[in-house]
């Protein structure tokens, strides 16, 4: 059963990629929708399995670490798998109706989409440093492909910038892996951790290289320059996938690395620097979001800001008590989840709005509330989560991080959290405000189908309601970030 579920997670998306590659967009849509259903069922199945059996390791191909590639199936991974299933399904569902099926290049959307999903699942589960690299590369290339599909000049420029930067980031990561392999002779993260704990080998440069490379790919300030153009120019469902999941993958690896290796290889100063960069991202991203004229650029810069919060994980888990560290991990996990849901909702809703007013400008939204209240409302609800207002998941995350920062005595992060919430309010309300402007006589709005409006609403409601079901979710996390024993 376990084998089949694992296969379901890792190989079914690949199979779907292969199948949809041969189909037109329209036909691929139906196949993909079926596939999404399968994926959701499989993800839920794995979840139930973990709930039932507890965390476990699974060697692929019957080869265990260190020789083979080993999957680590723990609570955190499951949360990410479920998150992926949710966001990807939503974006896929939306994309099936949103994308213009008359454009011939759209048929490439589905295979790319499925490759992305497969790679994401592999990243969540993999416990092998090199396999993670390959997974990252798959993600990068699919993401670039998704951005570039259609081939407009702006899209190409954004895609190229993204590709080049991401490749260098991957290279930095790979260099780190090379050094780690040279030092330890293995690629399994769990084994590396154990060896490191036993031998106390210093490996600052590899860690720094890997974190640096991953930070670039997660668009940590000041290396975020590629993100806004790429996310802004992509089609809305793609932007949703990118902001919600793609950037999270590299952060996820960074977090795993940090929690496994950071205690030995990291230093307080290093953690603080990353925290400061994260804080700077919060401020910088929000400020620039406030200055953007295009709706999707606003949302994209908001991602830069929101990703900044994630990097508070580094200072808040080093040299602090177990409880505080746990709180910080829980907070960051929640932030990832709620941001993915909210940002997905936001991009999809933004897509609907843009479709409706036929312009990507913020100012064009005047009066749209009358015609597209549902989408606008979804956008608003997602904004609530971004602002970290209750009862959203963003709020629960902020709460946990606040508690952690206060309890660890690093109160300055608390200020960052609060200021970040306010700054995000500034740009979110800028959008609301634009939509409330009443002077528009324009009554010609295209009304997208209801089902298109439903998707972002569901995501937004999930983001909003997340704060109320935090407890069960954190129970699932149990021992987050791989406290499990090496097999």
């Amino acid at each position, binding site marked *: 059963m376990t084998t089949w579920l694992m296969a379901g997670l890792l190989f079914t998306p690949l199979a779907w990629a292969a199948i949809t590659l041969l189909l037109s967009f329209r036909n691929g849509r139906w196949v993909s929708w079926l596939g999404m259903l399968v994926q959701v069922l499989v993800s839920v199945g794995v979840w139930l399995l973990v709930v039932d059996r507890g965390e476990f390791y699974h060697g692929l191909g019957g080869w265990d670490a260190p020789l083979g590639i080993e999957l680590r199936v723990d609570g955190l991974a499951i949360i990410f798998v479920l998150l992926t299933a949710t966001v990807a399904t939503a974006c896929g569902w939306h994309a099936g109706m949103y994308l213009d099926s008359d454009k011939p290049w759209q048929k490439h959307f589905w295979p790319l989409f499925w490759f992305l999903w497969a790679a994401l699942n592999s990243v969540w589960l993999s416990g092998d440093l090199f396999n993670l690299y390959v997974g990252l590369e798959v993600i990068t290339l699919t993401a670039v492909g998704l951005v570039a599909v259609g081939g407009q000049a702006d899209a190409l420029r954004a895609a190229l910038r993204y590709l080049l*930067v991401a490749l260098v*980031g991957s290279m*930095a990561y790979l260099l780190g892996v090379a050094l780690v392999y040279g030092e330890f002779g293995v690629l399994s993260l769990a084994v590396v951790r154990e060896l490191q704990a036993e031998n106390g080998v210093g490996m600052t440069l590899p860690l*720094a290289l890997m974190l640096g490379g991953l*930070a670039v790919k997660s668009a940590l300030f000041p290396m975020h*320059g590629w993100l806004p153009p790429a996310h802004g120019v992509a089609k809305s469902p793609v932007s949703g996938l990118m902001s919600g999941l793609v950037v999270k993958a590299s952060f996820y690896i960074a977090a795993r690395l940090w929690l496994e290796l950071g205690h030995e290889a990291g230093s307080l100063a290093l953690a603080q*620097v990353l925290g400061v960069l994260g804080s700077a991202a919060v401020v910088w991203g929000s400020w620039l979001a406030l200055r953007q004229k295009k709706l999707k650029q606003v949302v994209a810069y908001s991602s830069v800001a929101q990703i900044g919060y994630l990097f508070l994980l580094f200072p808040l888990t080093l040299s602090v008590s177990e409880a505080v560290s746990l709180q910080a991990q829980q907070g960051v996990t929640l932030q990832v989840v709620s941001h993915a849901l909210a940002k997905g909702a936001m991009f999809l809703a933004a897509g609907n709005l843009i479709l409706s007013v036929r312009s990507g400008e913020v100012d064009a939204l005047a009066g749209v509330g009358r015609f597209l209240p549902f989408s606008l409302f979804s956008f608003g609800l997602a904004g609530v989560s971004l602002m970290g207002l209750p009862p959203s998941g963003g709020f629960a995350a902020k709460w946990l991080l606040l508690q952690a920062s206060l309890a660890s005595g690093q109160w300055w992060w608390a200020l960052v959290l609060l200021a970040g919430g306010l700054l995000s309010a500034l740009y979110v309300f800028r959008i609301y405000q634009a939509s409330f402007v009443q002077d528009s006589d324009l009554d010609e709005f295209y009304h997208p189908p209801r089902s298109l409006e439903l998707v972002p609403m569901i995501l937004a409601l999930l983001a909003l309601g997340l704060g109320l079901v935090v407890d069960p979710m954190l129970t699932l996390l149990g021992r987050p970030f791989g406290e499990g024993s090496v097999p």
Partner: protein
Amino acid sequence: MMALFPPLVLASVLLPLLFPLLALRPDWARLMTYALPLLPLPALFVAIFSTPGWELELPALLMGSVWQMDELRQLFLLLTAGLWTTAGCFAIGYMGPEHLRRFCVCWGFTLAGNLGLIMAGDIASFYSFFALMTFAAYGLVVHEGTDNSRRAGRVYITMGMLGEMAMLAGFIMVAQQAGSLLMADIPAAIVNADNQDLIVTLLVAGFGVKAGLPLLHFWLPLAHPVAPTPASAVLSGAMIKAGLLGWLLVLPLGELASPGAGSTLALFGAVAGLGAAVVGVCQRDPKAVLAYSSISQMGLMTIMTGVALSDPQRAPVLLPVIALYALHHGFAKGVLFLSTAVALPSGRWARGLVWLLIALPGLSLAGLPFTSGALAKLASKEALASEGLGFAWAGHLSMVSTAISVATLLLVLRFLYVLPAKVKTGGRPNVLWLGWSAATATSLVLFWVMPWQVDGLVKAPVWLPSGAKLWQLSWPLLTGLAIGLVAGRLVSRAPAIPQGDGVVVLELLAGSVKKGAGGVARLGTRLGSGGMAARLMLHTRAAIGLWADEQERHLRHRTVLVMVVIVLILTWL
């Protein structure tokens, strides 16, 4: 006489209180006017027929209400109800069609307040009725809508609010001290209070606004003349007495010897009594003369209150005297005010008779024998005897009171002198005549029915005063007459003192303060909105924004360099 009959008591307040509801129908305006004299009737009935001493508990109202009746209250109720009845009668004929409903509404509320405060036995309801009266009477004051009346209204309401506030503060303190809300507990609480002086000052000042205490009187000569005549009558006759009643109810008369407070109060009274007369004779408007006369008369009553405050032994005697004096003055002053609006009949005899009837209450005020005034004067003389008083100038009290009598006569003369210029000749509605006649009759008859036996104060039958007493009464009259005649000969025109005397200064002051505040406010607005700071902030914001855009562009091209630098930094750390 009968015991408590709650429905009647309630009706006596509720009738005028609910009467304004009639105003909901625009076409009932005239009807409302006709109802005016009926409003005080239940109260009048209560005043005349109920035996004092009852208490009516209304626990649900406010913070637990009690209405009650005693001799003092009865006298005041009698005065109030009676005067309002006659004035109401007069109003039917007097009032024109403009804003009739509004007038009737204000009338009803004022009346309800005035009646209610007399019967109120607890602080909350007393204060409520008092405030109701104060605020509703504003409508009566400004009714004419002229500039003068508006100004008078402004001064009235300002002073009224000040008074209410002083009263409220005093009440809060005293209630806290007493731990009870009953009016009856107040005097004892004041006796025991630490901040006795403050409480007494606040209460005296609070009621003093209504009672025309000097420096708190400014509104009075402004408001009484501009109000419609029937309203002037009740203002000057009945409502002014509410202040006095307040004093009598709350001050620890008979329980505390407080020569300091007493003498101060008496001093204020004396100043009022004489000062108002001086200003009053310089007025040209007969109603203004009357208003100043009211202040002057209230001065006398203030003196008596002050004396009662400083000599507890004498208080039981003084209280009824003050009450009687108030009764007498109320009716007399009421009718005098009404007189300003009667139109003289065309017949010579009739006109003479009317003049006589107008003059009589005035002379009664001055203490003309065989009038209520005479009785009141005598009683007060007796009460103000100097022995036993603990303050320095107590010996001069009797002289002062005499002087006030003289001043009163002068004022009355002045009134009669300036009146003809204003009085019109010609027909007036019968009801107006009816009201006026009733008032006059009451005032005159009062002497014969006054309950003089109160506490065996004045030996009956006082209406046959001895020769000495007659002289005692008459010489101030004669002196006044003489002075009046001489003055009238010598000075053809009295120097004009503006109505409301000191208020003019205050108004100037208030005007400049307002101007200053407006300037400050404007300055504040300018600084707040379009000021340098705002502009600077706007510029800074824009500059930061451009800078950020620029940096963002640079960063976009240097991502990899930055990454390497960060890796180096992280490693170095």
